[in-house]
């Protein structure tokens, strides 16, 4: 059988096959990195436009709830101000104690600032983001990613030379070792729930958890430091016929609004 030179299927098999082959062998890597580098400024700008549109669209949708939301937020700000002053005092006391005991501060970590350039929407319930830093900048999978406010927003899951994929705490399959700031210091693993909230499962039934408790990273595993805020418990499911209880956690910030993040390198 003779294959015509201009046969479209043959064109795809040759050109497409060659691209895939050269990618896998790594020959194309420099060219790919150059193209990513070249398009990053434009990608960042397009991403910001998309975010602005999304923000104004959401604001429009929520317009009717504004007075109620403003009142709730004002109350929350007041509560947080009180809590913050208490924590500042404790932090100062902690610093003095650490210095006295000559301990290395656990907050001694480096952060790599990165811009969000795209979102990966391969899986329908996933909201993974793509940042403009990669293995060249010292990133590796498993590292924690925080927002501008210092709230943990996810974890690096895959790294290429110039870019990295970050799963958000609300994405299914994005698991973080966590601890609840309650009397029992309950520990567990959080994972995303439908891309909207965070779930903490397998908590022994006898542990006392209440809505409003803060959930932080537990520091287990070593990749993510302890004490980064994940969110607040909004609901506890504790059925009498179950061995475990489950907590639903709400992130403190809107994870759809991220433009700049920091990757924590321990």
């Amino acid at each position, binding site marked *: 059988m003779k294959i015509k030179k*201009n046969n*479209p*299927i043959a*064109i*795809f098999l040759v*050109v*497409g096959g060659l*691209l*895939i082959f050269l*990618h*896998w062998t790594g020959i194309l890597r420099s060219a*790919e990195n150059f*193209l*990513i580098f070249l*398009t990053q400024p*434009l*990608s*960042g700008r*397009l*991403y910001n*436009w*998309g*975010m602005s*549109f*999304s923000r104004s*669209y*959401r604001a429009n949708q929520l317009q009717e709830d504004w007075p109620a939301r403003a009142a709730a937020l004002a109350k929350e700000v007041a509560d947080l101000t009180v809590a913050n002053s208490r924590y500042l005092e404790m932090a100062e006391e902690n610093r003095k104690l650490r210095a006295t005991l000559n301990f290395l501060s656990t907050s001694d970590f480096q952060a790599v600032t990165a811009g969000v*350039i*795209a*979102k*990966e*929407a*391969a*899986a*329908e*319930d996933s909201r*993974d983001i*793509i940042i403009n830093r990669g293995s060249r900048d010292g990133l590796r999978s498993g590292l924690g990613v925080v927002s501008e406010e210092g709230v943990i927003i996810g974890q690096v*899951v*895959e790294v*290429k030379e110039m*870019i990295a*994929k970050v799963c958000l705490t609300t994405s299914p399959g994005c698991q973080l070792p966590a601890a609840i700031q309650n009397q029992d210091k309950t520990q567990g693993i959080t994972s995303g729930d439908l891309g909207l909230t965070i779930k903490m499962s397998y908590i022994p039934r006898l542990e006392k958890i209440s809505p409003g408790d803060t959930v932080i990273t537990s520091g287990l595993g070593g990749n993510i430091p302890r004490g980064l805020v994940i969110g607040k418990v909004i609901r506890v499911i504790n059925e009498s016929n179950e061995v475990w209880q489950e907590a639903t956690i709400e992130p403190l910030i809107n994870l759809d609004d991220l433009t700049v993040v920091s990757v924590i390198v321990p």
Partner: protein
Amino acid sequence: MFKKIWRIIFFVLLLSGLAGIQLSLIFTLPDFFRQINLILIALIFTLFFFGFRAAVWAAIIGGFWLDLFSFSFFGLYLITLFLTALLTEKIANTWLTNRSLYSFLLLILTATVGYNIIFGVLFYFSNNQAVFFLTQSNFWQALAYQGVWSLAAGLLMFNLAGAATRWLKPVFLKKS
């Protein structure tokens, strides 16, 4: 000769731009808007107006850019777009042979369904997904949204192209 080179450069830049917009802008939009699939629309448009060969090039250029920023296996978008073009070409040559609006819209709808199923199958097997995509309500909702956008884009493109050329037939075929 130069005209042809400029046309190729324009084609490459246009598809690269569309891929960039798709990745960085459209995927960040709220749910309904993020289902716009610019590359797929461009592919069908190219296939319908410029032929299968041009559509294969569109699949290669668009697929390459999408794969470059994707963390699934390299070639996922390339293969999906090519198979979609091939499927649509076969349907266009076998059943929807006239160049009227309804056949164009039907072709776009078939391509959208085909693209999503091919992509879902390849993604499912390459990423060891726990749940099969056809049983997920998210998939069907996204497909419905994407169908609406594709049809709207098809309607717009057909009318624009219809105004520019006599090559297209009216909305419905007239009885002779």
